[in-house]
């Protein structure tokens, strides 16, 4: 039997998956009784779905997620009394994220010791940043100003929105993170090519040192120390750009 409307492979898979509308399903069923070439075409689309499911279920059982599960158990600050503002929430999420970064250095699943230096911890976190992380943030000057003031107070270092202005970098967000129990301020920017760049500061107690450049987890960075605080500008940008930004920030803060 030949059908007025030819049967496509798409219809045959819908027939096999039993999602075809009943009228067409009947037509194809009838055609299959006599049409040998259609039978061959149907057979050529048959797959062992149970086997596929079983194989992938075995894969899921061996997913290397123990450390991440641990982080979800332990690396989370208990919520405060009452409600959490979205501001506070995003900071807690960020602390958690930094924890993940520490546990999952380079994605290799190697659990690093907690005494690695803060530059590496920040780099671990920064590699997760993509343009989309920051591009969609609203440019609300008022809330940015409030966030900067809150982060600055927690860090114990006076940092104004004006001091954070860097030619060529668009300011996006201030976040309070934490490293080994100490506050760590992160100021996020997008550069002219929309590459995420972070300026970070934390109390280190280190002696003053001028701006130097280096790489942490593959990301170029410019870092310096002053007044017992460590500072770093880091991102997947040109190192000259980062060094320049570091120079500007070192003068302003």
């Amino acid at each position: 039997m030949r059908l007025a409307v030819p049967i496509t492979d798409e219809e045959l898979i819908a027939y096999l998956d039993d999602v075809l509308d009943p009228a067409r399903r009947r037509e194809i069923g009838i055609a299959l009784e006599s049409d040998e070439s259609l039978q061959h075409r149907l057979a050529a689309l048959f797959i062992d779905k149970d086997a596929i499911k079983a194989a992938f279920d075995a894969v899921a059982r061996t997913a290397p997620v123990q450390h991440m599960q641990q982080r979800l158990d332990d690396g989370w600050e208990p919520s405060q009394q009452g409600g959490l503002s979205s501001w506070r929430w995003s900071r807690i999420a960020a602390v958690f994220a930094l924890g993940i970064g520490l546990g999952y250095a380079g994605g290799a699943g190697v659990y690093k010791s907690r005494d690695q230096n803060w530059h590496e911890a920040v780099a671990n976190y920064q590699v997760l940043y993509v343009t989309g992380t920051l591009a969609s943030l609203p440019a609300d000057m008022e809330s940015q100003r409030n966030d900067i003031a809150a982060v600055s107070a927690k860090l114990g270092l006076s940092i104004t929105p004006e001091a954070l202005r860097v030619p060529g970098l668009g300011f996006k967000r201030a976040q309070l993170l934490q490293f080994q129990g100490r506050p760590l301020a992160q100021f996020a920017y997008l550069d002219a090519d929309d590459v995420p760049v972070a300026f970070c500061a934390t109390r280190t107690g280190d002696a003053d040192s001028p701006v130097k450049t280096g790489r942490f987890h593959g990301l170029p960075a410019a870092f310096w120390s002053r007044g017992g605080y460590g500072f770093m500008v880091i991102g997947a940008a040109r190192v000259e750009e980062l060094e320049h930004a570091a120079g500007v920030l070192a003068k302003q803060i």
Partner: protein
Amino acid sequence: LADKTDAFREGLKELLPRLWRFCLVLTGNRSAADDLTQAACVRALERRHQMREDTRLDRWVFRIAQTIWLNDLRAAKIRRGKGMMQPEEADLIDPAASAELTLYLAQVLSGVMELPEAQRMVIFLVCVEGYSYKEAAEHMGVPIGTVMSRLAAARARLSAMTEGVPVKDRER
């Protein structure tokens, strides 16, 4: 809100094995799957307030991982000169998993992972995660007809691959 927070965290924790598996299907590479799982968790936490009440957490987080992969990581990987993602077979199945797999299941797994990326994902969503054609189309942002033609192409390849494997060897 605290309870809701906890439920979200717990949900994410339970989802991790399946999320990682989803990321493995996307990336074809275990260490890239680790990175992508991590990035998707971070973004899900940052955006959890955008998730609608009637949305399933698993599908929402899968969508996040897919977006990160398409927009950012895959592009970066290609830019770094590694070319299109072809699954690295030796890297795909770790010894613990392969111990669980019969030869036949290991072949089935390799067969799916060797499919072109779009076909691989649609087979995975429909056969493993139980998406309807329409849900798969929504997830991938393509018309349902595209999903069906990808499925048909994928099934033809997979069917040819297992043709001739005696039924007794398919036992598991």
